[in-house]
């Protein structure tokens, strides 16, 4: 366990090594949040009386919580695995007495911890000072936290799978970019999933993206019945299991390829 925690520590250090990058990252969150805030406020203000699936306050809550969440759910696992495979560095990792996946996971935990302290917390304080409306449904918060943890796991497994694609692809950035775009829309990190047209919503039911932002953010910000909370958590659990299976398969196939090619 100790050795894995060392990796978490590396993750924290790596993320905090460049003060300039940390500052820029934080500013970028604010830049993004302010744009979202201005856009949704203006949209609701200019369309008074129009029937919209969400209220103004509900939408703003959603957007704020989603942005705070992104500060530590977002990860660079894909890029890191891609690089390790491309440079052949992964072979060095495999000879160590540790599980590669666990190593990546704990490193990511470190990065997320840094993200939590450096971005999510200050952002929350800043918002608490500027936006004086209640942000969360406190009675649903325990479920919300559980849902966030599941979302974190799903996000990690998803990134692991995509990262491992580098075993089979020469250039990985187009795939990453393509998926990032799909992810941005379908996860609900950009536009609340409740506003999706029917077709998109239906497609989304069969994809894991919704489980990363839309579900946890909804549970935290929107009052829901116990039943629907439970079923949403069930959906997340199901995705976690499915993705875990796929990640296992991908990992073993990739490893085999590595051994055959000799790194």
């Amino acid at each position, binding site marked *: 366990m100790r050795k894995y925690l060392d990796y978490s520590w590396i993750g924290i250090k790596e993320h905090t090594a460049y003060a300039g990058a940390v500052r*820029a990252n934080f500013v970028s969150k604010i830049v993004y949040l302010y744009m979202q805030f*201005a856009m949704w406020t203006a949209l609701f203000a200019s369309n008074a009386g129009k029937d919209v699936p969400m209220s103004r306050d509900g939408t703003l809550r959603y957007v704020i919580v989603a942005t705070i969440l992104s500060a530590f759910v977002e990860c660079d696992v894909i890029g890191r695995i891609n690089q390790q495979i491309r440079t052949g560095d992964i072979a060095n990792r495999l000879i160590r007495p540790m599980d590669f996946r666990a190593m990546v996971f704990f490193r990511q935990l470190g990065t997320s911890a840094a993200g939590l302290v450096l971005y999510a917390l200050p952002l929350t304080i800043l918002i608490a000072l500027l936006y004086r409306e209640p942000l969360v449904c406190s009675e649903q918060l325990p479920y919300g936290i559980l849902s966030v943890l599941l979302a974190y796991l799903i996000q990690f497994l998803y990134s692991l799978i995509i990262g491992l694609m580098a075993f089979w692809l020469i250039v990985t950035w187009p795939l990453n970019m393509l998926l990032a775009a799909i992810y941005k829309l379908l996860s609900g990190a950009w536009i609340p999933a409740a506003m999706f047209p029917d077709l998109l919503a239906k497609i989304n039911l069969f994809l894991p993206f919704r489980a990363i932002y839309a579900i946890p953010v909804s549970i935290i910000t929107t009052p829901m019945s116990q039943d629907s909370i439970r079923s949403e958590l069930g959906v997340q659990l199901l995705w976690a299991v499915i993705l875990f299976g796929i990640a296992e398969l991908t990992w073993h196939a990739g490893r085999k390829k590595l051994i055959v090619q000799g790194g």
Partner: protein
Amino acid sequence: MYLLKMYRHFVVIYMKGKLAYHCSLLFELIANTIQIGIYFAGFLVIFRNFDNIAGWSRDEVLFMFTTSWLAYSLSCFFFWSPMKDMGELIRSGKFDLYLTRPIGPMLYMVLQQFQYTFIPRLVLSVYFWIRSMSKLSIAWNAQSLLWYAVNMLSAFVIFSSITVFTGSISFWTVKSEEIVSLLTNNNYGLKNYTDYPVTIYNKGVRFLLCFIVPYAFTGYYPVAGLLGKPLPHPCFAYLSPLIAFVSLVAAKFLWSSGLGHYNSAGA
């Protein structure tokens, strides 16, 4: 003639290099198309739920930001990649090689690449530009058409100047990647602000978008003038060429002094 011939050479070389990696070129184009396509899809999803933003209809907003995007895609086609690579070129010392060529370093870097990854953005912008324009029934006449073209050119100059400006910072071996990302990142960059009418932002941000990083003059103000939207002052509709000129001078100045600094300090 000489430059055209050189450009043809460079493009052939660049594309040959790309094609060495089998289908990656096609894959990149598809990925870019989907990325930009999804941005438009998201935009349309928003306007399925709402009719207008700050008094601008969906098609008006579309027309406004595709005007800006057209210029942006073209500008990036030439300047984005060279300026993005500046930091790396200077840190690795490879910039020296450009200084020993009979073609100036800026021209050389612009010519030697062919950033086809901006073509999907350009094509999609043209599509939505035409689509939105056809729904708007703008009363074009020779004068407004000419003026629109002048503004488009100004937008190109403004975008290019900002890109060159950020690239030139690398001469002082300052890491400019973060600034570039803060400005143009597709998710959270400041440039995205001008995809919507700037009246939705507060005064400080509007000032920033007008006079510090003048993205607002690449689409919003000229189009607002064309569509007869209220302006803070009537002259805002006519300021783009002036802003473009000032940006150009500033970028040229920073580039030359950066080059001078490099010449005197090395990397």
